[in-house]
């Protein structure tokens, strides 16, 4: 009924709205049971403060970063002798551990220097890594992490990552997670992922499963490491990954982070602030924080009320990337909707993090009395959430934005959301037209692809055939289309689909 509301009918809108609103307010207690809570009124913006600086300072005091000797010269000779003994010492090989214990952390820097010294034979360099691991100190772990991250030799990165597992210092976890972003060597990746798992972070679990499923010499090793990671959890890898990626991630029996790891985490949160000029470290911090456990969601969410606007917004993005694992902080994201600077990003985050409780709040944010920026974010989020309560209102919104002067980005957000809500039929014709638009053809193409795929996954008539045609126009695997090629592809798809739409919509 609302979808068909003609433009001429709008003068009656205020009265209708008031009537409907009164009905809802009067009968609100009966609503939760039928899933139709009235949209909450906007709250007062939360009080902001130096959350990240305060927390970071407290953790730095509680768990100071390991201090290391400034140069590698002191102890260079003694540690070099240890390496020779460890590699060539025969029955005396294990005696080096006594000498190593005598040196303690004084051996850390020279051993790391030996590991990087390309003039030394590989077995001596590997022994240096082994001895660093044997120190089992936070300082040694710090240097091993440096080797795992920055060594130009992939074998050394792999070796260092492997030895880190036995160090017992979980403060290296964030640094290792960052390695997942940049590591291209499969062996080094394997050991980074495996060590992360042993230290209680499952960020590399999917990658480890992929390596184990390959048909190469590395697969057996990856499978063994995978088993070692998931066995203590009392489940198989698939179950562990599903839990880690879902709303019940806290049910995984993983160890809580130490203060030292929390210190590293808050250093990364500070990297999100406006004090960091380069976007690269911002993106690195966002990557790492979004791949840590659900406990990290709580830490990050507490910074949604930080005084720094960059930090607030990027924290919302971290939670968005984390997805359902961050469900534990849904309430804090809902509160963040009241802070204008972060509200659009918080809305988008709720699309991936939230559950049914987020729908009324997002519908309210999509209202015409809210800032355009927030409306677009909220409508996108409703589509990402895909909960059917939103379908009717979003459809009404989409259909009401049919005038050429109406904000087309909001209409595109609504059209895309309709696909996510299972109502793509309502937007398919318009999306097909937009395939020829200069402004939002890419979004239209993605949405239509999703609509066809969803239809083909059911028994809906014609969708399987239409999807085959659609995919037939795709770029060859591995190809990177230029502008001309992309335009031609969309034109072909639009032409094919235009001929098929009548049979698809409503089928």
């Amino acid at each position, binding site marked *: 009924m609302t979808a068909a509301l003609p433009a001429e009918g709008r003068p009656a809108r205020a009265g209708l709205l008031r009537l409907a609103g009164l009905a809802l307010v009067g009968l609100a207690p009966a609503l939760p049971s039928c899933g139709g809570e009235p949209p909450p009124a906007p709250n007062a913006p939360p009080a902001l403060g130096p959350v990240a600086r305060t927390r970071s300072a407290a953790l730095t005091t509680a768990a100071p970063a390991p201090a290391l000797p400034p140069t590698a010269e002191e102890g260079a000779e003694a540690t070099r002798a240890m390496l020779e003994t460890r590699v060539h010492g025969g029955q005396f090989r294990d005696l080096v551990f006594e000498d190593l214990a005598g040196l303690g952390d004084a051996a850390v820097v020279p051993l790391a220097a030996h590991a990087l010294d390309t003039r030394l034979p590989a077995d001596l360099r590997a022994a240096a890594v082994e001895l660093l691991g044997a120190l089992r100190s936070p300082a040694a772990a710090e240097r091993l992490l440096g080797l795992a991250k920055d060594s130009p030799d992939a074998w050394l990165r792999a070796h260092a990552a492997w030895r880190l597992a036995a160090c017992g210092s979980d403060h290296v976890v964030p640094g290792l997670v960052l390695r997942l972003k940049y590591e291209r060597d499969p062996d080094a990746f394997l050991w980074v992922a495996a060590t992360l798992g042993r230290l209680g972070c499952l960020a590399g679990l999917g990658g480890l499963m992929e390596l184990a499923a390959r048909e190469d010499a590395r697969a057996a090793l990856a499978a063994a490491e995978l088993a070692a990671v998931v066995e203590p959890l009392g489940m198989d890898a698939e179950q562990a990954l599903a839990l880690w990626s879902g709303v019940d991630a806290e049910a995984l029996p993983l160890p809580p982070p130490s203060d030292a790891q929390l210190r590293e985490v808050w250093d990364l949160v500070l990297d999100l602030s406006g004090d960091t000029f*380069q*976007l690269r470290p911002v993106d690195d911090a966002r990557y790492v924080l979004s791949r840590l456990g659900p406990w990290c969601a709580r830490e990050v969410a507490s910074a949604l009320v930080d005084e720094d606007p960059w930090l607030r917004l990027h924290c919302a993005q971290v939670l968005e990337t984390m997805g359902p694992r961050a469900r534990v902080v849904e309430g804090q994201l809902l509160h963040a909707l009241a802070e204008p600077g972060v509200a659009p990003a918080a809305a988008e985050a709720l699309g991936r993090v939230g559950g049914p409780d987020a729908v009324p709040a997002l519908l309210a944010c999509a209202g015409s009395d809210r800032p355009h920026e927030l409306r677009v974010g909220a409508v996108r989020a409703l589509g990402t959430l895909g909960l059917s309560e939103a379908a009717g209102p979003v459809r009404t919104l989409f259909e009401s934005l049919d005038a050429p002067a109406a904000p087309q980005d909001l209409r595109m957000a609504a059209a895309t959301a309709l696909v996510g809500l299972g109502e793509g039929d309502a937007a398919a014709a318009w999306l097909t037209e937009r395939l020829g638009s200069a402004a939002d053809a890419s979004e239209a193409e993605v949405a239509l692809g999703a609509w066809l795929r969803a239809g083909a996954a059911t028994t809906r008539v014609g969708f399987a055939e239409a999807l085959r045609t659609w995919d037939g126009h795709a770029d060859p695997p591995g190809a990177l289309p230029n502008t001309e*090629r992309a335009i031609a592809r969309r034109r072909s798809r639009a032409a094919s689909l235009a001929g098929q739409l009548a049979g698809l919509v409503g089928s």
Partner: protein
Amino acid sequence: MKKLLGILVLATAVWLGLELSPSSGERATSATPTQWTSSSQCQACHEEVYAEWADSWHAKAWIDEDVRVQSADFSNKICIDCHAPRPVFETGIGNRVLPRSSRRAEGVDCISCHLLPDGTIAGTIDNPSAPCRPVARRELQRVDFCAGCHDQHKTVTQWKLTDHATNGTGCIECHMPLREGDPNAGRYHQMAGGHDLELVRSAVALRATRDEAGIAVEVENLMRAHSFPTDERSRAADVFYRSAPEDPEQRGGWTHLHRIRDPYRHEVDQPSTLLQATPEGPDGPWENNTEVHPVRPLRIAAEAAAGPIEVALFYKLAPYYRDGETVLVTEEVTDPLIDAQLVHRVVVP
């Protein structure tokens, strides 16, 4: 009870539907907007500037196909901040910008540079009688104004070390010149850069001469205002050569000689080969850049340089070569024009 619930659901739907539908304020009117929300609002009064901007790569920052491919359709969030930025004045001159959630298709729009935090408009003159009532803000001409985005890959840092900085020749002198050279006519808003072949040609030189050892080739960063190429790792320049007999029909394929580019972070085995404007950066030698002199000497060995040789410099807006369907290995490309622009060519007899 079921009826009651039915009425409630219906009422909710009506209410939410009406709440979500656009207010009359969203319908286009010819009245002056009370809120500046889109570049299209500027078009009526600033037709010429709007047309220049609409034709610019700032306007295409979100929709350009190369950007979309390289950012995986912006699923790589790091790209959004500068390709659909909130106003520079919102976060402050010289700070990095924040990303927009809406109107992203407008890319780097009028509002990104001209909207002030109080909702008024920054211009070059005070004009309270104009519909947008601009206030003069000299920051618009400062190099730091562009830095929030254009120093993400050190362009402004590079510039600050050059004679141009000492002389006060900023970004806008080359990239936003005066219209017809007239100080009263405003500045071009096309923001010409790497997509403007003539500007690229003026920034770099190619020389080639024959000697006993073959052919000595030089590429020089002529403008020395920042590195060549600059601003992002997706840009590249390639030097190719081929035999050049008099009959064009007899010319063979090109052979790759050298690439000038800054690698992506994961390309750990590739050094930066940018033609820097200065030998050293602010903190000493440029990171990972071993051949930093503004003039790059190259050589084509004698055995490959028999007969007339054509040497050419090509400029690329994407780091890879595509033949429409596949991505080619640069060293195996024989026709760079499939995915690059010819900047300079020299024929060595």
